[in-house]
């Protein structure tokens, strides 16, 4: 068990390093001049001064040197300062993370029950049209652009009916619309995985046995099939975390909230390398560690795995 965890941790470290390196490489392959972006298109600045500013920020140093410097700093937990804001990258991420966590938590609070409800209803119903309709819902809501969904919700429930504020101020009111926007595609994600497994499980002999012993269809779904079908859904949790983070890029921009997604968006558009490196390391670490945690949690849910391990 210890060896398994150690090996997986080493793998996680390798994944993080690879992500760090790929980000750096992508930055150097994509054409962009961070200093020109900072100066902005509305200001005409002497080319000599642009070059001087580039040197001031160390952007004229060889790529290998900058990569190694950054890496050594990152290993000490120091991602440097943001080129755009002059703030410490670590502190900026620490400030933004709770806001994204609240958003993702709020979204999960809606997405998981909703996803379960859709999958459960589709598995439970004997009306074919309803099952088809429910089965099509996840695909539909996954293909709706989050950006558009957010704007529609704002139009309806903030500008039309003044129920919620359009800006992500602190407090629950500001969290509702962004959380729902992020929750709808996430619930589709949960429902899709769960429904696929439920459909398979409902055809298994043990469900017939349960029904023969007098269990209602609802009980057969809930108490028997769902427990087996929940396993793959659990595995998806870590992926869902990555998904929520990606979704927050759009949602936090539309709803004017600070958060990791918003930081990623601005780091990419302004070519703020140290900021982006910090964000990439944090998000890959979170996703890989969650995957590990989920793998370790499997035996808790599935007795068969426990026996095999023993």
């Amino acid at each position, binding site marked *: 068990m210890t060896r398994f965890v150690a090996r997986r941790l080493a793998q996680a470290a390798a994944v993080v390093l690879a992500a760090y390196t790929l980000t750096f490489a992508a930055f150097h392959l*994509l*054409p*962009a*001049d961070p200093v*020109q*972006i*900072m*100066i*902005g*298109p*509305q*200001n*005409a*600045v*002497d*080319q*000599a*001064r*642009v070059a*001087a*500013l580039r040197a*001031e920020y160390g952007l004229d140093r060889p790529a290998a040197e900058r990569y190694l410097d950054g890496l050594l700093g990152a290993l000490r937990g120091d991602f440097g300062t*943001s080129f*755009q*804001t*002059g*703030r410490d990258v670590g502190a900026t991420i620490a400030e*933004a993370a709770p806001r994204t966590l609240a958003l993702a938590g*709020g979204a999960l*609070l809606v997405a*998981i*029950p909703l996803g379960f409800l859709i999958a459960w209803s589709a598995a439970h119903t004997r009306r074919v049209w309803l099952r088809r309709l429910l089965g099509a819902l996840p695909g539909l809501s996954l293909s709706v652009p989050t950006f558009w969904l957010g*704007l529609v919700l*704002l*139009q309806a429930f903030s*500008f039309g009916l*003044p*129920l*919620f504020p*359009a*800006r992500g*101020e602190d*407090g*629950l*009111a500001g969290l*509702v619309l962004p959380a729902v926007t992020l929750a709808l595609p996430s619930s589709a994600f949960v429902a899709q995985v769960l429904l696929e497994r439920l459909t398979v499980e409902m055809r298994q002999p043990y469900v017939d046995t349960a029904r023969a012993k007098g269990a209602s269809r609802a009980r057969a779904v809930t108490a028997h099939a769902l427990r087996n079908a929940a396993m793959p859904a659990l595995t998806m949790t870590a992926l869902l975390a990555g998904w929520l983070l990606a979704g927050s890029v759009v949602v*936090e*921009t*539309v709803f*004017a*909230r*600070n*958060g990791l997604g*918003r*930081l990623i968006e*601005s780091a990419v*558009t302004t*070519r703020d390398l140290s900021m982006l490196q910090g964000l990439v390391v944090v998000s890959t670490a979170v996703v890989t560690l969650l995957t590990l945690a989920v793998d370790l949690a499997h035996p*808790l849910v599935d007795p068969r795995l*426990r026996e095999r391990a023993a």
Partner: protein
Amino acid sequence: MGIGIVGFRARAHRLVPVLRLISVLACGAVLVAGCATADAGRPAGDALTVGLAAPVSCLDPHQTPQTSNLHVSRQLVDSLTDQDPRTGEIVPWLATSWQVGEEAKRFTFTLRDGVTFSDGTPLDAAAVVANLDDIAKLGARSPLGAGYLAGYAGASALDAKTVEVRFDVPSGQFLQATSMVTLGMLSPGTLGKTPEQRCAGTLAGSGPFVLDRVALNEEVRLSARTGYAWASELATHRGAPRVRTLTFAIVTDPSVRHGSLLSGQLDADLQVLEQNQRSFGEQGPRLLSGTRPGIVFTLLPNETRPALHDLSVRRAIGAALDRSRFAPLLAAGERPATDVLATTTPGYADRSADLAYAPDEAVRLLDAAGWRRGPDGVRVKGSQRLSFELVYSANEPYGSVYQLMAQQLAEAGIELRPTPLDDATNSARQGAGDYDFVSWAVTRGDPTVLATVYPVRSANPQRRTKPDEVDSTIAEIATVLDPAERAEAVAAAAEAIISGGHGIPLFEQASSIGLAARVTGVRLDASGRPIFQDAEVRA
């Protein structure tokens, strides 16, 4: 261990219904709490919330060149002078009077009495010297300030109220530069901090508002400076702001900003898109527009490209454009260009005769230079085609104007390919000179702004290599401050630019902000920045 897990699992199993109930209750609670607080609305009268289109990064006016930062900084710092946006005249602010020495190399300012920074220190001659020295010392870190202080030889406090500023070379632009937010005054205590600390931390200026809080990517909150009594001559009421708090809410999506203004969640939208401007009418929110002074939006040729090296081609392109037809595509306050400078710039003159639509002249120039129509209608000479790529940022709202220009040029046998790019790619291609045309406007209420774009030693988007009369005529503008002499110098420079085809003026640009009906007293300064010192919110 196995037993432990089984035990946990058995308990967890019993917990399931409870967890289910909790989650349902939590969902309900979120909705109820949300509905309860959203109805409360915002208090009227003492708070103003305005929507900013881009996040703020560094609020130090000496360092940052970015519009969104400077919109906020403008409320925090005062300047030696102010500029009347209608006439371009420089008027007193922190300086009550000034003298300009021979050849514009020496400037002496007399300061107003009783001005203090928000940290309590007095704004005296020594503080002004410290500010100018700071900007000079920032060097490259002050990309705009370095231009305003080009040739700076030093400043000294002649007495507590009098400052002398000296330049090595004529600096006719410096007087107007003192009205710009970049040369705004910060307290000596603030200047003692490192550039990074000033970007990230607090700033003390002498302005009508003080910085309370920066929530990255969300908002910047300012509060009114009690006892403020030294607004510029342009303010209708000279005292402390009439609103107690001023919040810049960062809302990057234009439709969300617009919807928030219409629904009363924002009191102002500081960047109204052209397509949203039509929804402003007699009722409800209104639009405030100001034509920006400086270089108008101008098509700038990359003269290292063989076909654009040909003067007849550059001049033919200017003649083939019918600028009057741009008008329906432009935003409020914008109009076809009639000079290389906008109408609100000192030194502007109506040169529309030189910019007239002359399709026959375009054809004559191209025929004479040996460019013949090819099979697809595009003119060719040898292996070269008159086919040009105009690169621009996709965030720019002028794509439809560029398309219309392409249609007009096609009639003369010239192909223009407007290519919208994301900001990063655009900056890279423009920086590398990888374009046939770019389209720029530079805002500045002084004719010396021409020196930022046209000379060989400037941003030089034309990639010119040999200085000629363009460079010498523009250099001449910096040596004179008398309006008549300036007009003469500008006329010579404009003539050199237009006849040399180094810039093809297109249209004048404007800043437009949307204001809620209950907000009054907001004005736009000469750079198109909103000023909130006078603002009032009716209950």
